[in-house]
């Protein structure tokens, strides 16, 4: 039997599952404080950089004509893409009844919520005058002025808010029974906190039935919303007539890239969690194996879309498009381009395709490379096009500043911080879902063992 498919779940008793999965919530290790301190310090530095930008003006970020969209919008697209890890993958696995999803769903749903929160910050940071962001919100005002609903930026507002709201609810609903579990196990102020958060859940038959129904419905609703979000983000670019942006396949290309980077981020998170929180018996090699196969599929799909995109541009040979094309393939951005291809395709595909190489450390390495590659892909979509617009008098090479880099680094640290806090306050593996899965597994095993007896 393939080692990846081994199932060391037989010795997991109810008590042990509760103890193991609630341990990070009920006890605090020194590692938590270290993570919080380091990530908190980086976030504090990023806040200082943002304050600097607010005080001195957006020019300190390195954004100037013609690159009005640079790292902030790169980060925006990247994080919105990462958000596809969770709710979309969790919803698809739930709708298709994939039993192996159970230990993975919550950690992926949490990624979605935090990645969306971080992604949604970037348009505000990018505005420069961040205090005016509320102009984007459609609200009655004395001048009867409303946002332009024909603008893709406005669609972003609706799509991201819908996805964030839906993802928060989709994360919270299956969390309620586990919050009740923590309530029953906790003492002192924690008991009070979890009593409020669990809404008085008792786990009656009606409550379970309604919860499962609601979660199923949410799963069905959230899939098209997730697809729409990244499609709409792609339309921020595709609706313009800029070289290498005005493409009909940008929607699916972005969605594929988002799911690709999302799965990679999920694998990275799982890899860290199982080590740091001692969850080896719950997040098992088989979960990495299944996700690695999914990642392989997405890597091939991503390459197919990238190839199709570049081929059509090259074949058409339109001068403005070719200027951007050559800047990526042979010009100043080519190191990034080839790094992206290596990180997203050349290195991960053999790792993920060959069973002998498909081991947790290598899968994690491939996922880390994919995250880097996908960030570069977002950068390469945005910056080279803006650096070489249709009128050549305006061309300029892009250079960044410490402000932009600090804020970028800060958002990665912020993600780690939020995730660490989440694992501190909530069980990162859905306890009741995991137990339910074990019961289903035991029943299926009993049924399969009973078949030959019946045949005798």
């Amino acid at each position, binding site marked *: 039997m393939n080692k990846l498919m081994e199932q060391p779940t037989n010795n997991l008793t109810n008590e042990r599952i509760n103890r193991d999965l609630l341990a990070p919530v009920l006890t605090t290790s020194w590692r938590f404080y270290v993570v919080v301190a380091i990530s908190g310090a980086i976030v504090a530095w990023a806040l200082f950089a943002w304050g600097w930008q607010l005080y001195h003006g957006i020019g300190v970020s390195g954004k100037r004509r013609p690159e009005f969209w640079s790292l902030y919008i790169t980060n925006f697209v990247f994080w919105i893409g990462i958000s596809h890890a969770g709710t979309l993958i969790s919803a698809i696995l739930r709708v298709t009844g994939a039993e192996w999803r159970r230990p993975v769903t919550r950690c992926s749903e949490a990624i979605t919520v935090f990645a969306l929160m971080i992604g949604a910050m970037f348009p505000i940071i990018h505005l420069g005058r961040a205090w005016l962001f509320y102009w984007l919100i459609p609200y009655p005002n004395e001048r009867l002025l*409303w946002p332009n609903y024909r603008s893709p930026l406005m669609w972003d507002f609706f*799509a991201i808010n819908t996805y964030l709201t839906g993802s928060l609810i989709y994360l919270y609903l299956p969390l309620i029974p586990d919050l009740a*579990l923590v309530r*029953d196990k906790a003492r002192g102020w924690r008991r009070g906190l979890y*009593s409020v958060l669990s809404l*008085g859940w008792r786990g*009656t038959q009606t409550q379970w039935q309604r*919860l499962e129904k609601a979660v199923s419905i*949410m799963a069905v609703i959230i899939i098209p919303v997730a697809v729409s979000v990244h499609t709409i983000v792609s339309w921020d670019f595709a609706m313009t007539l800029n070289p290498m942006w005005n493409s009909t396949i940008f929607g699916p290309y972005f969605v594929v890239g988002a799911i690709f980077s999302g799965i990679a981020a999920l694998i990275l998170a799982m890899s860290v969690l199982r080590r740091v929180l001692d969850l080896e018996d719950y997040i098992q090699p088989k979960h990495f194996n299944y996700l690695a196969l999914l990642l392989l599929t997405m890597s091939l799909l991503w390459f197919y879309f990238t190839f199709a995109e570049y081929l059509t541009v090259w074949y058409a040979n339109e001068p403005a498009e070719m200027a951007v094309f050559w800047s990526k393939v042979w010009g100043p951005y080519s190191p990034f381009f080839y790094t992206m291809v290596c990180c997203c395709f050349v290195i991960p595909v053999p790792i993920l395709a060959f069973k002998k190489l498909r081991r947790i450390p290598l899968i994690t390495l491939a996922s880390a490379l994919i995250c880097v590659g996908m960030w570069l892909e977002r950068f390469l979509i945005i910056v080279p096009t803006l650096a070489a617009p249709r009128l050549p008098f305006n061309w300029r090479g892009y250079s960044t500043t410490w402000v932009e880099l600090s804020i970028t680094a800060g958002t990665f640290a912020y993600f780690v911080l939020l995730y660490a806090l989440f694992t501190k306050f909530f069980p990162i593996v859905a306890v009741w879902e995991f137990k339910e899965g074990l019961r289903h597994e035991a*029943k299926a095993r009993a049924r399969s063992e009973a078949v030959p007896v019946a045949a005798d």
Partner: protein
Amino acid sequence: MRERICVIFDEPEEARRAVQRLLEAGVNPADVTVMSSEPHLEAGEFIPETRRTLIGYFSLAGGVLGAIAGLSLVYFTSHAYPIVTGGMPLVPPLTTGIVMYEMAALGAIFFALARMLWEARLPRWRAVREDYTAELADGGVLISIKSGGEVGQEILREAGGREVPS
């Protein structure tokens, strides 16, 4: 006579049989509450459900209302201050469709959530103090009967349950 009896069973099957016997003995199904920290729904219901869930219909209605809200938002606000669009429509169907789509999803999500909470009778913090035991966290199925009397108590004990303070 005690008003409420709470009995915990280690095995869901035992609990299922006990509920069956309670109902056969004439205990009102509305007086029986079955609780657990896991769903245990795969083998059917403990108590026959009399009310169908309307979460799906509410979600659908929420979707329709959301779409109408999206259309209204775009249409009325665009007409409140009609900007010059150079002969293009003020409310183009394709772009309005995107706003309607997102609002429909939002409406469906909110209505499904609201209906779910309503049907599951949440939030209801007081119920935990009245009719529940934290022992459930370690597994098992809790059966609570309201005004079941001596008969109910006897049946539950015979069925292998362990009485717990609620």
